[in-house]
C-alpha cells in the first residue's frame, strides 16, 4: 500500500462515527515537522484511560465487563493501531497489597488480548499513590520514560507516585535532559495521568508542580499532552501546548466545577455505557498533523457485552 492510499484509508477511518477533531481544532497540534531521517508514513495509536479494574459500585454495575468490551472494541477497528497507551488508573485502588498485585495481573491478562502490537502503560493515583509506585513498577515497569515512534518523541510523565500529586524536581530534570537533544520544532507527545495545568484544583484536578513541566515544555513548538484522571473528554491550551483529556472506561465524571461535588455521573440502565470510550489519534505522515477521534463504547453490541462476561 502506497502512502497516498494509506492516507485515504485514514480519512475513511475517521469519517465514520465518533467525534473527529481535525488538525488545529481544540488544540490538536498541526504543521509539526518530522525529524530528519525518520520514517515517513501515517500511523495511529489509541488512548485508553481510567479503566479502574477492580472497581465495584453503583456508578458502573457492569465494571467486570467494561475493560473487556474496550479491548474488543479496539480489536474491531478497521485497522489496528501501532500501539495502545493506557494513561493511568489501570486498576482501582485497594489497601490490600496482595489484591493490588492481583488486580494488576488480571488487568494485564485482559489487555493481552489486544491485537495491537504494543502497549504503553503509566500509573494513575489509584495504581501508585498508596505505595509510591512499587506494585506498578513490579508489574508494568518504569513509571516515567520516553520512546520514539516514527519520528515522534513520546515522553511519559509520572504525577501520581507522589501521593501529593507532584512530578518532583528529579523527574523534571530527567525531562529536560530527555528533550534537550531535540530541535525546537521536534514533534513531542506527552502522556500523563493528571492534568498538568490547574483545571480544577478544588476537585484535585491538577498537578502540584505541573507549571514546572509546562514552563519547560514551552521551549518546544509542537507539544501535545494526552492525559486522563477527569473521566471525560476535555481540550485546553497553555500557550502553544495542547492538552487533551480522555473519556474513562469505568464511569464519567461531571464537567469541571459544574456541580458542588465531583461525584460520578449516575449510571443510566437505558444507556449503560454512556460517557465511556477511548480515543484514536492519527498522525499524518507528511504534515504531521494529529487528528483526534473520540469513540464511544455506547452502542457497541449487546452481544459483545454478553460474550465478555468475565470470571474476575
Amino acid at each position, binding site marked *: 500500500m502506497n502512502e497516498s492510499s494509506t492516507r485515504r484509508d485514514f480519512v475513511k477511518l475517521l469519517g465514520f462515527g465518533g467525534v473527529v477533531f481535525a488538525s488545529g481544532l481544540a488544540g490538536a497540534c498541526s504543521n509539526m515537522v518530522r525529524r530528519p531521517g525518520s520514517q515517513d508514513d501515517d500511523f495511529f495509536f489509541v488512548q485508553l484511560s481510567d479503566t479502574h479494574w477492580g472497581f465495584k459500585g453503583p456508578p458502573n454495575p457492569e465494571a467486570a465487563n467494561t475493560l473487556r468490551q474496550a479491548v474488543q472494541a479496539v480489536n474491531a477497528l478497521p485497522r489496528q493501531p501501532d500501539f495502545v497507551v493506557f494513561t493511568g488508573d489501570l486498576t482501582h*485502588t485497594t489497601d490490600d497489597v496482595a489484591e493490588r498485585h492481583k488486580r494488576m495481573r488480571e488487568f494485564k491478562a485482559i489487555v493481552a488480548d489486544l491485537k495491537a502490537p504494543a502497549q504503553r502503560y503509566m500509573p494513575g493515583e489509584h495504581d501508585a499513590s*498508596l505505595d509510591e509506585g512499587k506494585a506498578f513498577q513490579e508489574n508494568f515497569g518504569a513509571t516515567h520514560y520516553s520512546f520514539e515512534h516514527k519520528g515522534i518523541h513520546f515522553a511519559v510523565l509520572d504525577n501520581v507516585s507522589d*501521593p501529593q*500529586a507532584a512530578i518532583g524536581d528529579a523527574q523534571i530534570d530527567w525531562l529536560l535532559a530527555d528533550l534537550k537533544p531535540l530541535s525546537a520544532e521536534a514533534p513531542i507527545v506527552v502522556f500523563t495521568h493528571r492534568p498538568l495545568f490547574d483545571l480544577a484544583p*478544588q476537585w484535585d484536578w491538577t498537578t502540584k508542580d505541573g507549571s514546572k513541566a509546562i514552563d519547560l515544555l514551552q521551549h518546544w513548538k509542537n507539544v501535545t499532552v494526552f492525559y486522563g484522571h477527569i473521566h471525560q473528554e476535555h481540550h485546553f491550551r497553555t500557550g502553544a501546548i495542547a492538552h487533551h483529556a480522555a473519556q474513562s472506561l469505568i464511569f464519567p465524571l461531571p464537567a469541571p466545577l459544574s456541580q458542588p461535588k*465531583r461525584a460520578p455521573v449516575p449510571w443510566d440502565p437505558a444507556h449503560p455505557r454512556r460517557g465511556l470510550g477511548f480515543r484514536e489519534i492519527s498522525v499524518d505522515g507528511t504534515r504531521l498533523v494529529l487528528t483526534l477521534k473520540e469513540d464511544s463504547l455506547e452502542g457497541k453490541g449487546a452481544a459483545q457485552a454478553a460474550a465478555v462476561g468475565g470470571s474476575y
Partner: protein
Amino acid sequence: MRGLQWILGASLAALLATTSPEVTAQDKVIQVTAERFKFTPGVIELKVGEPVVLELTTLDRKHGFQVPDLKVDENIEPGKVTRVRIVPSKAGTFEFHCDVFCGSGHEEMAGEIVVKA
C-alpha cells in the same frame, strides 16, 4: 509552599489565612480531625470579622488540607497539630479537601468553610 507563610492574596478571596500561626488567648480555636475519608466537622461555620485558628489533626494516617480559594495547602501528619488562622472578611463558602491520596474514598474527602455575615 507548606510551612510558615502569610497568604496575602487570600484577602482577595474574602478571607485571610495564615498557616502555622501563634495561638493567643483571644483566639477562637476550632478542632478539625481528619480520617479516611472525612473531615470532622465537615462544615466549618465562621462569622465575618471573627478570626479563628483551625487545629488540624489526623486520626489515622497522613492527610492533606487544601483550600484552593485561600491558597492554603497543608499536610496533617500523625502525632502533630497543624494550625491555620483564618480572618473572615466577607461571607461566602470555600471548599476544602484532602490532597494526599489516601485510598478508595479519597475523592469524597472534602468539606466547606461557610462564612456568615
